[in-house]
């Protein structure tokens, strides 16, 4: 096992890479979540003319490797005059990928609430938006949490792809340090531990969110 003296010169880089990874994860999740929820709601409760193109789009994105999507944003868009910074390009690509998969997870939870409830609410004269907000979502939310967090963890791991479009994230810094020092597994193990820690935090959040929802909506669990 190499000494701390091997790791020390690269430690600040690893920490800054980790910080970039945290920021990538944060922005990706923050932007993808509302987009995914909107897609899921429109596809489940919206008009057909809006649902159909969305379902085509989601399924097209889901057929592609994430790396191809990132390449399209990073290498393809400049062809049309859209030049983005690596971080922005990576975030945009990851949001597109993440939102597509996440909307499917959310759709599952929304579909699990019997459709008759919305009809019943309409029969009682409740506006549709109100019915979605006060009747549909409170029941779908607890079902959404576990697949949402699973997806969030997958998306955090997915941010490592940003290293392929020259973002200096944790994976990029770890591989750079290993190729300079010829000590790959030290740096890769450190990076792996950082990712596990980040995902551990998300798993913890999941437990807290499930407990909160159980108490708030008193669902049988």
């Amino acid at each position, binding site marked *: 096992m190499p000494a701390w003296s091997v790791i020390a010169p690269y430690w600040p880089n690893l920490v800054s890479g980790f910080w970039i990874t945290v920021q990538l994860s944060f922005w990706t999740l923050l932007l993808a979540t509302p987009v995914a929820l909107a897609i899921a709601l429109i596809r489940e409760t919206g008009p057909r003319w809006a649902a159909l193109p969305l379902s085509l789009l989601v399924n097209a994105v889901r057929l592609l490797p994430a790396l191809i999507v990132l*390449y*399209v944003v990073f290498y393809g868009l400049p062809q049309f*005059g859209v030049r983005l910074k690596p971080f922005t390009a990576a975030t945009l690509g990851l949001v597109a990928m993440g939102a597509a998969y996440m909307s499917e997870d959310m759709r599952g939870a929304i579909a699990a609430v019997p459709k008759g409830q919305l009809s019943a609410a309409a029969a009682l004269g409740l506006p549709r938006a109100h019915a979605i907000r006060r009747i549909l979502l409170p029941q779908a939310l607890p079902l959404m949490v576990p697949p949402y967090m699973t997806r969030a963890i997958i998306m955090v791991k997915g941010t490592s792809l940003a290293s392929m479009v020259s973002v200096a994230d944790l*994976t990029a810094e770890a591989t750079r340090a290993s190729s300079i020092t010829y000590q790959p597994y030290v740096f890769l193990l450190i990076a*792996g531990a950082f*990712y596990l820690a980040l995902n551990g935090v998300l798993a913890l959040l999941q437990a807290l969110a499930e407990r909160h929802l159980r108490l708030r909506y008193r669902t049988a669990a």
Partner: protein
Amino acid sequence: MALDFSAIPTVFPALLKGAAVTLELTLAVLVLATPGGALVALMRGAPSPALRGAVTGASWIFRGIPPLLLLFFAFFGLPLMGLTLPPLPAAILAMTAYMSFYFGEVFASGLASVPKGQWQAAAALGLPRRRVLFRIILPQTIPAALPPYISHATEILKGTALAAAVAVPELTSAAKKVFVVTFRPMEVLIVAAAIYALMDAALLILQMLGERWSARRRARS
């Protein structure tokens, strides 16, 4: 700027060659990770708590670390432990390692979908355990495990794009090599995306056939 596909016929053979490597990688991982997943699923039900704990821990680690990092580890880290592999086998090894654990989860939940009482009933009738597993339990797990199995198989297909990072000449790296020369990334990426979509479609057709086959089988018995 409009899309211009005039250069595609010239570069298409290079993309096809990449697609062949992608297919080879996908099939190799599928063939190796399927028994790997079965082994993981069986070990999770093992009587020894130490073995069960070890498998659960390993599963958590392998599913919690970005696949890209595992690829780097197989490619750069293993040579230090005396195992130097060419890019393709290194990628197969890394992908098999994490996919086995994903398949393990799929198969474990498939096994859990068959009521435990059937084991006891078969044992009461004097059937040997192995025969019970192969003739009674496994055929019933297929309907529950097939859809997630195929969706993970498409994950393998899309995940092979990561092998571009460790110099495997698969479709994504072939696409990048080509568009660096043609200066028209978007067109090349669109063609590569279409090839990926076709391969995904082939897997989805397999799933449909498999589901129909298992439904017919169930109807017959």
